[in-house]
């Protein structure tokens, strides 16, 4: 286990250390101390490392993550795991807005609540939120899965493309072109697997599925209100 004290090393040195490892090296486990709400911590990782962050982080933690498993033992600021490509990002506390924004792959788990715009413009990532999400979540969500064990704020899935949303609690309102859809066995299986991967014990049978009505796929003046 390698401990990196962000307070003494500074952000550049911590990120440089994590990103200049020999791919063949044995050092895989890292612990970052004194994050103090700092930004861009452990962003741009490329190796299958195991990074634990001991405290609350600021914006863009684990941004563009590839292969690594990053665990935040605290809350995360704006854009945690934004544009992540693979690997796992786990937030033990709450996440701020735009969690998993535009992310292409991997798994983002938020054990607490996520704020507004969770999964905005998501492009293939799987996001599992143990609590609730704020307004405009899954806005323009293109593909991937968003699982919400709690409630969802206003305009869920506004302008959604092909992403799949699974919601257990109440939804304040659905966004443009987002509708409830049938939960077929294939969806239930997918949801079960997602919850399992996230280590979440919520019963899949308690969720409803939501997705695109596909009425905005070709511009029609009669749908102009939705734009």
């Amino acid at each position, binding site marked *: 286990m390698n401990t990196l004290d962000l307070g003494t090393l500074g952000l550049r040195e911590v990120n440089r250390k994590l990103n200049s490892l020999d791919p063949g090296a044995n050092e895989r486990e890292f612990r970052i101390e004194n994050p*103090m*709400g*700092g*930004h861009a911590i452990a962003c741009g990782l490329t190796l299958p490392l195991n990074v634990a962050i001991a*405290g*609350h982080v*600021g*914006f863009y933690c684990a941004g563009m993550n590839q292969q690594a498993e990053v665990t935040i033992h*605290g*809350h995360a*600021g*704006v854009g945690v795991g934004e544009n992540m490509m693979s690997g796992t990002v786990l937030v033990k*506390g*709450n996440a*701020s*807005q735009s969690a998993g924004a535009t992310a292409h792959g991997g798994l983002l788990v938020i054990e607490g609540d996520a*704020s*507004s715009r969770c999964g905005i413009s998501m492009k293939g990532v799987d996001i599992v939120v143990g609590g609730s999400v*704020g*307004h405009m979540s899954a806005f323009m969500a293109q593909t991937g899965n968003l699982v919400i064990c709690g409630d969802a704020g*206003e305009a869920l899935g506004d302008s959604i493309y092909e992403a799949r949303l699974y919601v257990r609690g109440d939804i304040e309102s659905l966004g443009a072109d987002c509708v409830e859809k049938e939960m077929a066995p294939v969806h239930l299986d997918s949801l079960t697997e997602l919850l399992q991967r996230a280590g979440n014990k919520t019963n899949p049978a308690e969720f409803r599925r939501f997705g695109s009505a596909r009425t905005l796929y070709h511009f029609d003046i009669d749908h102009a209100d939705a734009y």
Partner: protein
Amino acid sequence: MCGIVGLYLKNDALRPELGRLFRPMLEEMTSRGPDSAGVAIYRDPVAEGSTKYSLAHASGDHDWQALADDIASACAASARARPIDTHAVLISDADEAQVRARLAEHHPDVRLVGSGRSVEIFKETGLPKDVYSRFDLDRAEGSHMIGHTRMATESAVTTAGSHPFATGADLCLVHNGSLSNHNRLREELVRRGLSFQTENDSEVAAAYLTWKIRQGVSLTRALEDALDDLDGFFTFCVGTSEGFAVLRDPIACKHAVLAETDDWVAMATEYRAIATLPDAEQARIWEPRPSTVYSWGDTGLEVDALAGAHGAALENARSGTADNRQAVTRTPH
């Protein structure tokens, strides 16, 4: 744009530390706002019948004693001034309207930055750490403070354009965001008798609240009305005699975070400004929801004005110290 911060001390034993605790909060926001900084500190309340005025002058060596003497004789009352850098705090038991009139007519080069019974407002151009030192705030004691670091968007970097902006007795505003209809609103407020020193959108928001409150509307109601009348992106922190209030616009793109322990309540644009406070790691941390007025203080807000026209629902505080915090959610149309 900006960084905004606020700190309210629930534990009286911490009051001597207010200035020391607040400095790192303001400094952490320097990169968001390198152009200028300002604070409003609530301390040393004066007796009923007296008023504190925060005044500023372009030069650092204005004859504040002469000003105090002039106010005293012109208003037939007592007046004394405590100078600090380019500012001074004037305390007088004269009638407030008389003092304002005298200042406007006979001391036009002096800016009236704020007034009330406990608030003192200091703001200048320059880096936050330097501004803080100039006003000797490290040793400041008091119950609560709000602050602002500025990156000017569409108006000039001047002292007058800095926040906090006073909006009434012991009321002031700091703002992170950018309004889009402030020019028309400014004209309308001018027609209703308010005056402006800058082209700044935040000054318009502050004047709007001033105007609303002058009409007898509660602060909470004024903030609710702001959701209808102001267009653009904003996170507001309003300093009050009792504590501070926070409001985010419905789209809520400008980040804000709140934190609370048994000893204090804090708000900031970014968590790292709060991270320096004692026991921050263990604090309850959450984000203010859009279109919702949050406030802290010794007494609650008036709640009666909320029901009716706006259809606002009174929402019980989420888990936390419910006795001195009330949140009101505005139902969007």
